């Protein structure tokens, strides 16, 4: 008889299993599944206690996926296109918690555009992931607003309209963290997720996540094949938690690496690839996206970061106790005050 292998745990004393969700009901091979797996790993690696995360989503295949990770976290799978508002309100309940939102390209770029843009401009502290497949998966293969001009889909004809570029939209709305990745590039997705989870404010991740059932033709810009053939990473990204920082110094030769210090003391290391890219310049990011569009690349990596802006909830100067744990004496003004108030009327 063999003794069972000891279960591996992280610094929070939890095993990988403590981060899992229900079995996925998405199609086999769906990009969304790999993203869910990377979320599990990233949270495990970061030693996040699942109870300290809230999950949000809209409606769509992508929006189902919060059920498939972090079963021990509170979550709300809301309305199509309205994750932004639901999450915005919920963020005030207990500001010690972190939030992950999962949306689809239809959910965010079509019906949810307005809410998305406004959540971003308020710098709401949330990791906002768009699982972008250029198509409506759950309703069976109509064009989403990120579909490329000229895409042909069964029953739908040819798309005529310019695609929405989620990263461009986030930048235009003054997002403080903008990244693009590809579900086929698991390592990058994971490291970006870790950085996003440590970010101070809204972190928008536009992850190309192929829909194997409705939009995976080789020449479609949201397919696995196209993504693999056209991915052009800006850098090799690694995330160094606050505590590990010192150990990892010196691993890289001078000048080959750019360090970005996060608000929480951790560091994002960006290893230079072909060219050096400075993600702290918004102008750079615009330029990069503009040339991406002209050249038809899938540029991935951290496009823009700014750790210095106050987050939405910070602007409110809230009490330290989570609001949702306040009780009567804190919430109802004292009895004496009512007379003063009445005296203020005429």
């Amino acid at each position: 008889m063999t003794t069972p292998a000891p279960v591996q745990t992280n610094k929070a004393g939890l095993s990988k299993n403590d981060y899992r969700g229900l079995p996925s009901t998405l199609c086999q091979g769906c990009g969304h599944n790999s993203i869910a797996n990377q979320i599990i790993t990233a949270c495990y690696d970061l030693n996040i206690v699942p109870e300290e995360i809230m999950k949000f989503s809209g409606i769509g295949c992508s929006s189902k996926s919060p059920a498939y990770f972090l079963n021990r976290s509170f979550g709300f799978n809301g309305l199509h296109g309205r994750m932004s508002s639901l999450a915005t309100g919920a963020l005030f309940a207990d500001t010690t918690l972190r939030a992950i939102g999962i949306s689809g390209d239809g959910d965010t770029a079509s019906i949810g555009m307005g809410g998305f843009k406004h959540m971003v401009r308020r710098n709401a502290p949330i990791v906002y992931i768009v699982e972008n497949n250029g198509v409506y998966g759950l309703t069976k293969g109509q064009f989403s607003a990120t579909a490329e001009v000229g895409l042909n889909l069964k029953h739908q004809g040819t798309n005529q309209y310019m695609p929405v570029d989620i990263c461009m939209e986030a930048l235009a709305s003054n997002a403080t963290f903008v990244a693009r990745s590809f579900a086929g590039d698991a390592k990058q997705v994971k490291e970006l997720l870790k950085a996003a989870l440590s970010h101070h404010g809204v972190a928008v991740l536009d992850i190309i996540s192929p829909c194997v059932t409705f939009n995976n033709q080789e020449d479609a810009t949201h397919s696995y094949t196209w993504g693999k053939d056209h991915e052009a990473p800006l850098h090799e990204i690694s995330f160094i938690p606050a505590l590990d920082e010192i150990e990892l110094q010196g691993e890289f030769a001078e000048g080959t690496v750019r360090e970005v210090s996060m608000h929480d003391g951790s560091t994002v290391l960006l290893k230079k690839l072909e060219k050096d890219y400075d993600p702290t310049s918004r102008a750079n990011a615009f330029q990069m996206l503009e040339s991406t569009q002209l050249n038809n690349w899938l540029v991935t990596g951290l496009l823009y970061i700014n750790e210095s802006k106050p987050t939405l909830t910070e602007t409110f100067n809230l009490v330290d106790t989570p609001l949702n744990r306040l009780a009567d004496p804190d919430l109802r003004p004292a009895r004496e005050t009512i007379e003063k108030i009445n005296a203020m009327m005429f």
Partner: protein
Amino acid sequence: MSEKVINDFSVTIATVNGSGSQTANVTLLRALFKMGIPVSGKNLFPSNIQGLPTWYTIRVSKDGFVARRDEQEVVVTLNPVSFARDLASVRPGGAFFYADDIRLPIARSDISVYPMPVKQMARAANVSPALRDYIANMVYVGILAQMLGIDLETIKQALSFHFKGKAQAIDSNFTTIKTAADWATQNLKKSDPYSVAQMDSTSGFVMADGNTAAALGAIYGGLQFAAWYPITPASTLAESLNVFLPQLRKTTDGKQTYAVLQAEDELAAVGMAIGAGWGGLRSMTSTSGPGISLMAEYAGLAYYAEVPVVIWDVQRIGPSTGLPTRTAQGDLTEAYFLSHGDKQNIILLPGSVQECFEFGWKALDLAEHLQAPVFVLSDLDLGMNQWMTKPFEYPDTPLERGKVLWEADLEKLNGVWGRYKDSDGDGIPFRTVPGNKHPSAAWFGRGTGHDENARYTEDANTWENNMARLKKKYDTARTLVPKPVIKAAKGATVGIIAYGSTEPAVEEALALLKQAGGPKTAFLRLRALPCTAEAQDFIKKYERIYIVEANRDGQLRQILSAVLPDQAHKFRSACHSDGLPLTAKWVKEAILAQEEK
């Protein structure tokens, strides 16, 4: 001059929007109130910032009737555009004051006519030209005060209140008023019968508007989160939160126990409020009809996922954009049936400013108690006008937080509970909120089909059972919502049902009906839906029930017919809607006309 009429007439003042006449008008209103005379003031203003005609109508009533009246005994006009119409509106025997720079024909000999040298006195006031229009308004205050007998001391008190004690503003305005009053003493000879005299019928009352009251009520109800989007006539509700929350709900070190957020639209506003409600915050949004329409989808999510949230609808007249600055009670059926699929919503119907305060906190209690959206339907008349009201009463029950389980509770239960389980037989399940660290606390909220443990399912029976529980919960709501206010009448066979801002008109109509030898009539003021047992009993008791409403379709009648089909044959609509508050006369006549049939 006919016999003197004291403390019983209406004054209407016609000015130009954006000219600052509001200060003058509320000053008059408040002065009358301070003289102890029951009053009401209603602002009939255009959807415009500057330049269009606007009216303010004040009723003084020794008998305490404060509904709007159609008849105008005293009319003041500063507006050439509305001059002819204003002149025509004076009741025979009444008084007409006008700015003497308007040179238009006055072909009426059945009224007293008083020119006022408004422009001239404004110019004499020695203020910057920008302020002249504004000062002009103080001229009519002074002249009216003098001609009606309003105590200048009370006017000073009103000014002092308005200008928050700022001496300079008070003095400069008062000087003009005084000068104008003096001018009137010397130049006008009173030939109309209308005047006021000190009484003692307003002590124990304050003056306030419903939106301020609602905001204050919510604050005393422990409101923690509000999201809103500007819309007339609801904006001042949220704006009052911004005024009073910092005064009442900051900690000693200046930190906030609340957050108020102006959203990008109403869809987002209600979504944020629902997110906060799900998160365990006492949460609300406030809007008017167009916003309610936009909230339809989200309202269904709150109903079905069972999230507490309060939605104030300060109604204006619709459909569509309608007349954004005119009042109506036209959103009742929409709010009741709001959202697709099976549902009925809980609706509170405040009938006075004080009740706006009371329902401000009660709505939050009910929402958390019932884990459901609670609508509160006020209207422009109630929300934006100044009313005499009983002072706000400190809530008499502690905050009702509903069935929320925290770590210690789950400990006791060994972590065994079901988010959508009817453990207590009242249809209301338990819930937990984020931040609860117990390992069995978390659940996954959704608008899709779910079982007792909030797990996704498409099972037919589970769906149906859960929907039946929601219906049961609605029946529980029936026992919890505010009961109606009933005014019985011995031997009555006829009942009247009304709600909201029409109460003063109905109260007065009861008196008029009595005078006119109409039927003996009992009166029920409905304060909520679902319809409580008391309301049902009332309906069963009378042969005929008149349902008085400020809408075209008799919307409460429609709902009550659906709810009480056995009683529906009794219902008669007395409804009408033109943007103005109902008058007692109209109510009386609407009822008499049908009685005679």
